[in-house]
């Protein structure tokens, strides 16, 4: 009888623990995402064709994080409708100096001149790049509040209080079709999320992963945008 009671106690404790953890998991995923695209020309991609992800030039004031660019590139290259993604460094180095921050074309009007330069069109064809995707965006803390204080002594330490902050991840991806020498359209995401940090002795961070959500949302939409030809 005692053994049965012990087991029942253990199950009760486990249940209580799960009840504590579950809201944390649920609340930590609290983000609002908006993804939209504007199509200018017909799209589509053939076998052997690929895309390259580029961050807009810092000469133009862009602050896109390298992590975000890498995240989008990785997300595009895996899962259903995965695209062939040419590594950015490999592409930029093979076309040096024509895709450097100073020299890269800022709009599609510069594409004919760029491809007319000796060797450029040949190198792009050799790399099998059909679309260049220009990313522009960042994550900002738009609001925050609360207070949290921590103290430590010889007997131990702890925190007490409550803090919160709201992050906003905005990003735009301009898709250029190097075959048509024109813009295929843009895909944009706007993800907003509020993170909480309550602390009663132990701080429990409930983080809203806005950047990760923006990355996934943007990559999924880009796949759909490039692979699906709505005009067809």
């Amino acid at each position: 009888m005692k053994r049965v009671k012990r087991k029942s106690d253990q199950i009760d404790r486990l249940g209580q623990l799960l009840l504590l953890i579950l809201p944390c998991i649920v609340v930590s995923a609290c983000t609002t995402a908006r993804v939209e695209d504007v199509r200018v020309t017909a799209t589509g991609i053939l076998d052997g064709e690929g895309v390259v992800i580029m961050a807009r030039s810092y000469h133009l004031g862009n602050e896109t994080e390298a992590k975000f660019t890498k995240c989008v590139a990785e997300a595009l290259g895996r899962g259903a409708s995965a695209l062939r993604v040419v590594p950015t460094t490999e592409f930029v180095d093979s076309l040096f100096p024509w895709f450097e921050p100073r020299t890269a074309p800022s709009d599609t009007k510069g594409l004919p001149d760029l491809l007319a330069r000796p060797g450029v069109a040949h190198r792009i064809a050799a790399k099998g790049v059909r679309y260049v995707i220009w990313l522009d965006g960042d994550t900002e803390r738009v609001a925050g509040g609360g207070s949290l204080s921590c103290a430590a002594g010889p007997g131990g330490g702890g925190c007490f209080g409550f803090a919160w902050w709201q992050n906003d991840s905005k990003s735009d991806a301009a898709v250029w079709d190097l075959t048509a020498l024109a813009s295929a359209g843009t895909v944009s995401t706007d993800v907003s999320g509020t993170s909480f940090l309550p602390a009663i002795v132990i701080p429990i961070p409930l983080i809203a992963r806005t950047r990760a959500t923006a990355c996934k949302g943007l990559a999924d939409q880009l796949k759909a945008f490039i692979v699906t030809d709505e005009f067809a």
Partner: protein
Amino acid sequence: MLVSDWWSNKANNGKSRCRIPTQGHSVSATSCPLRGKDPVISKPISCKPGMLHCSRTGSKVIITGWTFRIRGTLTTCSALIYEQAAVQQSPWGSNLTSNMLKAVLIAVFLTALGGCSSQVTVNAPTIPDPLVDRIPISVAVKFPVEFEHFVHQENVIGKEKWTIDLGRSNIMLFTKLFDAMFDEFTVVDNSVDPRDLPIDAWIEPSIDAFEFSVPSQSQTPSFAVWIRYRIKIFDSQGNQFANWPISAYGKSLTTTMGGDKALRRAAVLAMRDAAALIIMQMDKATGISNLNRETLSKVAASPEPAMPESALPETAPEESQTTASEDTTDETR
């Protein structure tokens, strides 16, 4: 001067006292054998009051006046006595020196903690083979001595000190660049007079200024590097044909691994930026292609000028100060 190994005494477990009977002498060394072993007191104990610790745990010597009270299980205490005249120091002197030393060590430690410094080395920047048409002239380049080992330091007041060591990376940059840009290219030693060489022009690059900013200065999460190069071009006769300053800029966001990597990346981006600018603008800004000796001789022989007069060395300004900066309209924009 050592008077004698004057004193030896049995002592037991902290309660025994070892008394030095002679006033006017100082104890300069002692040993406290503990259970047959000999933990040596690392510091001289010529001071009177105070406390010293043996190097072995559990053996402690407390000096009160001339009395040693020894804690721990001891078998024998001994001390070497020097004449006062030989020691010639205040009983407080050693303590004072010791305290000062401690204070200096603490100060040095705190300074080291507060005034952190970072050193970034750029050994071999990635400068790919440029995709560019060669200019049909033969050039030589003379690198200044500073290009062999360029180091720049920047002190962020009250914060940290940054040192960036570009090493020979400027030589690598310009060698790769000019080798791809010109039909024939040679690097000449500073002792060589380029006028004796069968070349159309020679180039002397240099660094006018090098600056960078770290996040604590710019209040942004970025490291930025500015390099201002100057490129002087001389014709085959040694006349200065062009003097072209160029400003290059590189920027990199801070990584979680620290600022060193970001600063290195910003420096490499600035060098690549300079390379891109030189490739795009050099001929336009300096007219270096006009220095081709064959073309010049044809022009001299022909009754009608085959090229604009302004391009000829005779009519070109002695020092054409041309600038291609960021605001120059690029062809591709």
